[in-house]
């Protein structure tokens, strides 16, 4: 009896061990600062969580490493008339659980996204009127008004496709714990706040007949910057995010200028910030190149006009205001600055060196005679200030928006739209009206050339009006071990199928 049990357990061990022995690819460990909040792509747009989605799920269209729009689960899309798009889907694709992928799944996911209150991604899909399944591999999307961004919307957050049985309330609950997609990696296990394991989906259409270079990904959240850094140095993890720029020399890093930019949103309803000249003066008083060079180890790019250079609508003709304290003082006097105190707010952990950044900005403004105070808050309080649109008059809040559509419609117009965070503060009597009309017009213009022209004028208004303080485009900075390498993406996504073993 005993012997047979031993034999049995030996057999089990051999059975368990043999597939592992057959694996030749790499297992890598990625350490983000926080765990994913859910595995349901409808329920989170938070950058860290979306990094999990992008590996598990596919979208109809997708941005490649250079942020060019490429076919994903859709192989072709074309506009039909002003308000409809015909989309052809990839055939022969299977979900991780074996069920075939069809147009019905896309319809179910998009309709769930559109249903009010079911997901947090509704805004990005709100232009869609209805979706019709034409055949298992083709569908027609009809929009309420002409929507030039439809192909881009299919790549955005929330566009991740899962089997239609998960689109119900009950199904979504299951999906949140056990994700099923068509993506390059499939879910293995999730121990909350400890690890989430994925393994390569060898049937993925995107491998292009090559074997996956990374066989297994272990996500291991480490909240503390210092602990994360030393985990990498000890060789416990292979990829870490949010490396403080000053630590770049200590570990091997990969960097790229991101689509995210740092700004100080401000309440411009009262003097002195209601005066354009004062807002311009504040820009002339900032030595942005020095801040980027010293505080961010040169990793960052000053910008102007409200658009990152990765986005459609970026206006290269607009150069950031130069550092000119004398001009700043003159403009402050002209604008009638009379010693009012400005308050700079930021949540702890908004971005790398956030507190130091505000201290430096405050110091530079003090140099030209502006009274400034800094107030750091807990993230929950910051979130409340942001959600309630509650920045006090002459207060400024540090933020780092990013266009979810890689088009300025998804950042500038999201924020300065009357419903957006800054829409409330940009007072009525300012050229905001013209800006408002332009952005609204661009939103429904299918002709890309025309749109570009409209955006050129709109960004010029932002460049001149300065309704927020434009700091710089952030850099994405990863620390990597000797085992793995990849080309970092400007959109902050960590895509394991783009990673390769380091030589």
């Amino acid at each position, binding site marked *: 009896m005993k012997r047979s049990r031993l034999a049995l357990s030996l057999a089990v061990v051999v059975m368990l061990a043999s597939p592992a022995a057959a694996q030749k690819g790499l297992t890598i460990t990625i350490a983000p600062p926080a765990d994913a909040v859910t595995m349901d792509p409808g329920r989170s747009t938070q950058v860290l969580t979306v990094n999990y989605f992008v590996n598990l799920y596919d979208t109809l269209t997708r941005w490649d490493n250079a942020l060019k729009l490429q076919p994903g689960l859709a192989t072709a899309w074309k506009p039909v008339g002003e308000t409809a798009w015909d989309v052809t889907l990839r055939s022969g694709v299977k979900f991780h659980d074996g069920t075939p992928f069809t147009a019905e799944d896309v319809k179910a996911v998009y309709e769930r996204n559109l249903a009010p209150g079911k997901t947090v991604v509704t805004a990005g899909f709100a232009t869609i009127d209805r979706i019709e399944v034409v055949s298992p591999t083709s569908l027609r999307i009809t929009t309420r008004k002409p929507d030039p961004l439809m192909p881009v919307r299919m790549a955005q957050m929330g566009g991740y496709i899962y089997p239609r049985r998960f689109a119900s309330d009950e199904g979504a609950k299951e999906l949140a714990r056990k994700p099923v997609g068509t993506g390059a990696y499939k879910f293995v296990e999730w121990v909350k706040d400890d690890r989430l394991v994925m393994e390569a989906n060898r049937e993925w259409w995107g491998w292009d007949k090559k074997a996956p270079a990374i066989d297994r990904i272990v996500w291991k959240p480490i909240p503390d910057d210092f602990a994360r850094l030393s985990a990498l140095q000890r060789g416990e993890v292979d990829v870490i995010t949010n490396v403080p720029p*000053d630590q770049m020399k200590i570990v091997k890093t990969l960097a790229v200028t991101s689509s995210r930019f740092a700004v100080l949103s401000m309440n411009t309803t009262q003097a002195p910030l209601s005066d354009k000249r004062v807002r311009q003066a504040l820009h002339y008083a900032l030595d942005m190149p020095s801040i980027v060079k*010293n*505080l961010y180890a040169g990793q960052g790019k000053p910008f102007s006009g409200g658009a990152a250079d990765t986005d459609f609508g970026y206006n290269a003709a607009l150069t950031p205001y130069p550092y000119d304290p004398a001009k700043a003082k003159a403009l402050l006097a002209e604008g009638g600055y009379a010693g009012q105190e400005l308050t700079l707010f930021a949540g702890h952990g908004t971005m790398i060196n956030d507190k130091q950044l505000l201290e430096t900005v405050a110091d530079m403004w*003090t140099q030209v005679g502006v009274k400034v*105070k800094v107030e*750091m*808050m*807990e993230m929950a309080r910051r979130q409340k200030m942001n959600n309630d649109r509650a920045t006090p008059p002459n207060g400024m809040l540090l933020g780092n928006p990013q266009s979810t559509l890689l088009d300025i419609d998804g950042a500038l117009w999201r924020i300065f739209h009357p419903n957006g965070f800054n829409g409330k503060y940009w007072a009525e009597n300012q050229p905001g009206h013209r800006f408002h009309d332009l952005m609204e017009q661009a939103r429904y213009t299918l002709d890309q050339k025309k749109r570009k022209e409209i955006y050129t004028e709109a960004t010029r208004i932002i460049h001149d009006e300065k309704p927020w303080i434009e700091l710089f485009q952030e850099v994405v900075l990863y620390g990597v071990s000797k085992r793995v390498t990849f080309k970092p993406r400007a959109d902050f996504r960590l895509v394991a199928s783009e990673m390769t073993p380091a030589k």
Partner: protein
Amino acid sequence: MLIVPAVPVIAAIIVAVGAPWIAPASPTTGKLAARLQPPVWHEAGTWARILGTDLLGRDVLSRLIWGARISLLIALLATILGAAAGSLIGLVTGYYRGRVDRVVTKLIDVQLAFPFVLLAIAVIAVAGPSIPVLVIVLAIGSWVGHARIVRGLVLSLRERDYVQAALALGAGTPRVLFRHLVPEILSLIVVIATFDVGRIIILESTLSFLGLGVQPPTPSWGSDLRDAAIYVRQAWWMATFPGLAIMLVVLGVNLLGDALRDVLDPRTQKI
């Protein structure tokens, strides 16, 4: 006996009071290009920045000096507030006993069982961080100790003959409390408060380290330590000097408390 422990404390007070005249540079203005400069005895150090510069190029020595002002001010105010409130509550509850006493004692037990940092985070998250809020939060953290000790003392003192005699002679409650009981316990309050100053300096540093305390760019030892934490390998001087300052002052205050107890409390004096 009081001189040795008093040295770091008096030095800190002098530095705190004289900060505008003593500090060689502005604590809040720095040249970014001259950041992370080592102290003077290093090859790269200069006499203009004796203890080096921090990550924004500000003078570490000047921040230390101005930080003393903020840290000591907050600690002293919070101690006085906590000691006054705690002693008064202890005095009243110990004297009257009864229902008030039971309620207050329960309150004290509840607060002692509640983690202080959590309480502080909750209060500061709602009220927003500022120096007055910080003083009040720290006072909330310290009144319990005073209240408990004073209450215990008063419980036994009120049965003493001289108190009973005063009552028999028709003395009113305020007179008994403040003429007969307070003088008896005052020296003890001073001793506890002295120990508390040290504890509160540490607590203030803890809160500032967590980002809940003094707001930038105002220098405080705790918030400077927070900035320094991640730079320990590149710029040890940023963490070392504020850390040493906290240690020396707290050690001094504690030794001073010991010495004061010996002087003020006749029972511990050797015959």
